[in-house]
């Protein structure tokens, strides 16, 4: 008779698997306190310096080979545009956008540049189940269209609403987002095109740790000029692009309610269960099934044996 799954062995195996899964899970949680790549680059954006010239938008468009804009880049009527009641945002034709904010307390308009903030622990990367995203040691969050299946989970995961979907090529899925000019510049140690184009040096490129220091120095030296906060130092666990401003950040469109820890931290408990469900549950339920149908099988095998014996006997006779 064929050896069927023994109940004792099955329970033993199940216990071992659960224990190992628990150990693995703990390890994952511990390995999680990632402080970012030490030599990762960053950009400090000084909102007090930006004059809204849109040079960065123009430079980005050419560097990334993006489509021709609807309006010239020296047309400033775009600042008055509203789309569905909202100011302009990045889309499949523009990786970066400058918006104007009229803050009543200040006699001049303020401008804010929007692009991917290149999180230290990106939520898009965490959410992507085909690993289309990579955080490079240089600091860029880059995207691989070859493996993308177009599920657009990253668009929902991003706390800054940056990844956009190229709806014009839905059958060849493609997410469009700023990649820190990784391919053409950053990997050779060069600043992104927008930084190079900025006439006011509102964008300062350097090692993330260095530009962070610069931000702190500016806040300290020009006492009272800046809000004592660097947006992106701790937001969502830290971002490569950081901002300093002379008005509270929520007045210039920043989401000040984003968590001060990586988005991953709020979902890792759940994500930790996923591998367990995927590896242990199939074994467990197959086991239950086998146990439940064990008697039937034994019976079937016995019947088959009896029939064989009968056949043999008949053959002999």
């Amino acid at each position: 008779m064929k050896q069927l799954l023994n109940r004792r062995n099955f329970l033993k195996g199940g216990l071992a698997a659960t224990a190992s899964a628990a150990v693995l899970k703990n390890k994952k949680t511990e390995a999680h306190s990632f402080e970012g790549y030490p030599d990762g680059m960053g950009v400090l954006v000084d909102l007090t310096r930006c004059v809204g010239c849109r040079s960065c938008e123009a430079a980005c468009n050419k560097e990334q080979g993006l489509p021709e804009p609807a309006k010239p880049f020296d047309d400033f009527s775009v600042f008055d545009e509203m789309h569905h009641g909202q100011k302009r945002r990045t889309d499949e034709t523009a990786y970066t956008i400058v918006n104007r904010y009229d803050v009543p307390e200040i006699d001049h308009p303020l401008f804010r540049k929007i692009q991917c903030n290149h999180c230290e622990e990106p939520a898009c990367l965490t959410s992507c189940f085909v690993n289309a995203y990579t955080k490079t040691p240089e600091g860029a969050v880059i995207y691989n269209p070859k493996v993308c299946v177009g599920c657009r989970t990253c668009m929902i995961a991003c706390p800054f609403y940056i990844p956009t979907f190229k709806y014009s090529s839905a059958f060849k899925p493609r997410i469009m987002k700023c990649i820190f000019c990784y391919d053409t510049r950053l990997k050779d140690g060069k600043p992104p095109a927008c930084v190079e184009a900025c006439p006011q040096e509102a964008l300062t490129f350097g090692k993330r740790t260095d530009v962070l220091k610069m931000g702190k120095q500016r806040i300290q030296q020009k006492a009272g000029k800046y809000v004592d906060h660097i947006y992106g130092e701790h937001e969502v666990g830290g971002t490569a692009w950081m901002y300093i401003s002379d008005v509270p950040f929520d007045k210039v469109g920043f989401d000040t309610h984003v968590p001060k820890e990586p988005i991953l931290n709020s979902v890792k408990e759940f994500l930790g269960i996923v591998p367990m469900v995927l590896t242990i549950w199939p074994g467990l339920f197959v086991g239950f099934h086998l146990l439940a149908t064990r008697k039937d099988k034994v019976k079937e095998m016995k019947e088959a044996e009896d029939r064989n014996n009968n056949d043999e006997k008949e053959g002999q006779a």
Partner: protein
Amino acid sequence: MRTRKKIVRTAFALAIGTVFIVPSQTWCMDASDAPESVTIDTMSDLYGPVEFDHLMHSEYASCQECHHQTTGEIVVDPNCGRCHHSHDENDIVSCSECHEADRFNKTYLKTLENPELYHFDKPGLKGAFHLNCVRCHEITSGPTGCQECHTMTEAGEKRFNTGSYAPAKGTASSGHEH
């Protein structure tokens, strides 16, 4: 007649003396030492060179308002003055001697890692120009639009999709108003 000649001679001697003595006393440059006009063309690409009317600007502002910590005048920024009141840097006049034209190149960024360097946040040349000019122009209602100081080159029109490279449906507005 003799007394008149004497007076003229004395006046002449005094005039000569003034020329020699006064500068050596304060060791200070004067707007008249500077060229009337300066062509800023080191970085011109998208925009053509800027003809900077130095004489006109020297009437609006004192030297040290732009040439901070240089030209021998008293340093305006007290923070700079802590070190730069009697150093060689005071003899530097040209912006580009302190402000790096290629501000973000790898080698220059490396030099900023020196822990003893105080000026690790010194703007590059382009930043120094614009931060200095635009800030003052905003206060004094001077020109602040890009093309009020610069003429855009063809490369610039191509970059900004404007002029002869304007999108078919687009409308170009001239200048940038704050």
